[in-house]
């Protein structure tokens, strides 16, 4: 066996992977276009004017888990309280923050200590204090010992009074119609739709971005943030919409995920055994409902429901994505029993194989392709022309996928300024050279972290705000 033969086979493997993964991406993008257009038209046709003020809407408990979130938390809570939705409550859990999270909340919402005897459905870390707001009676703040995000969400669930819960991150600023956008399809079919998630914008300072009106919103000038926006848009609007159509939506994101509370209680709440809670919970709910053969739907929508903070430094981005990769590995390994099993329907036959291919195998495939490249170059076997054409091809293919996602986004939301949208599309082909290497590195570190059993959150520092 010669080196050349080995390299040849390695190149075939890489090409095989590329064809498989991009083939799936394009198939999903096509389905996503159909789903995105369908949902946008459906929303237009439904005309929700009467629903906004109706008491027939379903009340929602909005749950925050906040650990060291003194910078974004007040804006985030304010954006929820300003939502146009008839009935909801907001429960913020301060997860033993070591910064001024509780103090800023206390000042902004005039919190007063009070006590509530709650239903203890889930065991959580000890509660240190409960606060009600003099400014808005819908707000409750719970101060507890540090126990992680899952523990905090379980604690909030113990206090939640309504049938649906919306979990959002403390750095997420919601649009004023976000609750209605999320609950719209649940109102149509509350018996079947048990979970809803939707896309968010990425911004350095979400509170500023959300002030810009529809159609005139900017995409951050910083390339790193613009690339993250591109990544989100593509992931949600050229993939997850397709997952949703086939009912294998595998990740209801922590930044905005609506769940029916009884479902969460039935599956045992948010698990503390994983690095993060969102993907694992989605997998667990699928596993539970498919195993019992009960009808259900978990939907991902194309409507931009808010903006969330994106890391502004490469280091922070790597830490964030490394954590995401770890939790993907943990979850896929934990639920490997669903893979390829007919009992689990599209989740086992399409969703998990796709996840495996695009999220779990990809760090290894990327490593293999880099290794092949280096060895080929060192051995003088690299055909530069073929290599350049291949790379250019991948870059353009990425660009096409980005454009498809941007097209669905614009059709659904009409949110961004046209020049900004065009800039996003122009960045599409460059992503392979400027952004993908960072993500590949983060993923590789995530794999190593997973193999080492690392369970740390590695939260990125919140972006600095200018003094008021």
């Amino acid at each position, binding site marked *: 066996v010669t080196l050349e033969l080995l390299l040849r086979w390695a190149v075939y493997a890489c090409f095989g992977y590329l064809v498989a993964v991009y083939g799936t991406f394009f198939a999903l993008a096509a389905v996503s276009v159909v789903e995105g257009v369908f949902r946008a*038209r459906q929303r237009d046709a439904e005309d929700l004017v009467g629903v906004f003020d109706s008491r027939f809407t379903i009340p929602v408990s909005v749950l925050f888990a906040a650990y060291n979130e003194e910078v974004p938390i007040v804006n985030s809570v304010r954006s929820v309280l300003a939502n146009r939705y008839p009935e909801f409550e907001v429960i913020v859990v301060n997860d033993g923050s070591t910064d001024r999270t509780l103090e800023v909340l206390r000042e902004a919402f005039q919190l007063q200590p009070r006590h509530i005897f709650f239903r203890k459905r889930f065991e959580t870390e000890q509660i240190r204090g409960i606060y009600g707001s003099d400014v808005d009676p819908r707000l409750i703040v719970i101060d507890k010992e540090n126990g992680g995000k899952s523990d905090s969400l379980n604690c909030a669930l113990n206090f939640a009074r309504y049938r649906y819960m919306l979990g959002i991150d403390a750095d997420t600023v919601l649009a004023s119609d976000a609750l209605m956008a999320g609950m719209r399809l649940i109102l149509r079919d509350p018996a079947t739709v048990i979970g809803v998630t939707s896309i968010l914008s990425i911004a350095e300072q979400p509170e500023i971005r959300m002030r810009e009106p529809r159609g005139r919103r900017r995409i951050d000038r910083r390339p790193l943030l613009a690339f993250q926006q591109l990544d989100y848009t593509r992931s949600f609007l050229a993939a997850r919409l397709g997952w949703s159509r086939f009912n294998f939506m595998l990740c209801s994101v922590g930044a905005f995920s609506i769940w029916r509370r009884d479902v969460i209680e039935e599956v045992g709440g948010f698990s503390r055994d994983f690095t993060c809670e969102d993907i694992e919970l989605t997998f667990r709910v699928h596993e539970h409902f498919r195993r019992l053969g009960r009808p259900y739907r978990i939907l991902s929508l194309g409507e931009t429901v808010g903006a969330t903070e994106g890391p502004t430094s490469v280091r922070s981005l790597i830490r964030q994505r490394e954590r995401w990769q770890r939790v993907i590995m943990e979850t896929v390994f934990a639920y490997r029993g669903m893979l390829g099993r007919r009992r689990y329907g599209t989740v086992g036959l399409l969703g998990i194989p796709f996840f495996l291919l695009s999220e779990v195998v990809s760090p290894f495939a990327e490593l293999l392709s880099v290794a092949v490249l280096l060895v080929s170059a060192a051995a003088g076997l690299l055909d530069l022309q073929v290599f350049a054409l291949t790379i250019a091809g991948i870059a*353009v293919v990425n660009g*096409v996928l980005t*454009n498809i996602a941007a*097209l669905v986004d614009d059709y659904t939301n009409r949110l961004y300024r046209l020049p900004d949208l065009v800039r996003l599309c122009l960045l599409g082909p460059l992503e392979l050279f400027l952004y993908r290497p960072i993500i590949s590195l983060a993923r590789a570190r995530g794999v190593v972290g997973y193999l080492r059993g690392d369970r740390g959150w590695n939260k990125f520092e919140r972006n600095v705000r200018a003094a008021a």
Partner: protein
Amino acid sequence: MLLAFSVAWAVTLAAIVAGRLRIDRDPARLRGARRVTAATPRTRRARYAGDRRRRRRWNRIEALRLIAETRTPLRLAEREALVDALADPNEDVRLGALAAISARGDELAAQLLVTALVDWQTGRARVATELERQPEEQVAPLLRALLSDPRQDVRFWALQVIGRSRSSLSWAEVSELLHDPSPNVRAALAEGLPLFYRRPTMALRRLLADDEWFVRLHAARALGEARAVRAAPAVAELLRDPSWWVRDAAEKALVAFGKAGTREALRLLDDEDPFARDSAAEVLQDSGFLERCVTTAASGNAEAEAVLAKVRSAVGDVLVESAVARAASPDQTPAHEGADDEPRLAVAS
């Protein structure tokens, strides 16, 4: 291959720009409805509105919308198209028709929406949101007729909408519904009684003793909303209810009763049931009574001190400590909007 993808990239980018720059687009027009416009003649419009092909559904919805907006009397074909659309197997068509019909706000709309409330198997909540917007005098007689319908879900939804539209029911109707075999109907009755019956207390008190927990919950909540202070002793009994939700509703009602609720809560502080004690103490907290006790006790009032001691022995120190912290807070505002005039400490005795 590279060339093909480059062309695809350029085409998709052009599509985004063209989509934005399309100047002929009417923002009020439904996307996907290319064949129907306001200028489409009525006969053709009616034909589109009756087109049952799935791929033409957006044109159909747009046509239905334009028909519903017509101010002149509807032709038979147009009327039939609206009726058919409300019964269409496609949910999007049904909901599109629902919104279009609702916007008319006339007698025909009321009739068709009530028919949808009866016939639809799913999505009745959406019909109810539209019925809520219709003039009360048009929908109320139609809905009242449904209260004797043999189907329990029809009776349930009729009651729900009657409650929201604030039309009134007679005692004979209420009395019959009190004995309805469906707990859902009884719960809807409890929820709506303060809205559609002038003296709801007696009926609600009867529902407080219902076998189903959610009927008791709605009865307690409704009594609170109606500020029916004479029902305070009966509501206070629910602080011992096995359901947390019922206890919670009773607690909120007692807070809303003000002084009468406080009196009942004080009575239950030494109850055998620990849940009743917890809830009673929470009533005292949420009504602002505990803070007033703290303030009064600080000036040496023995009666207030006795109340605080009683709360401590009932549920521990945590509530009193919270009250002390609140009382010490400089920017304190009233604890609950439902609390009425200052309850005298004499109620403790």
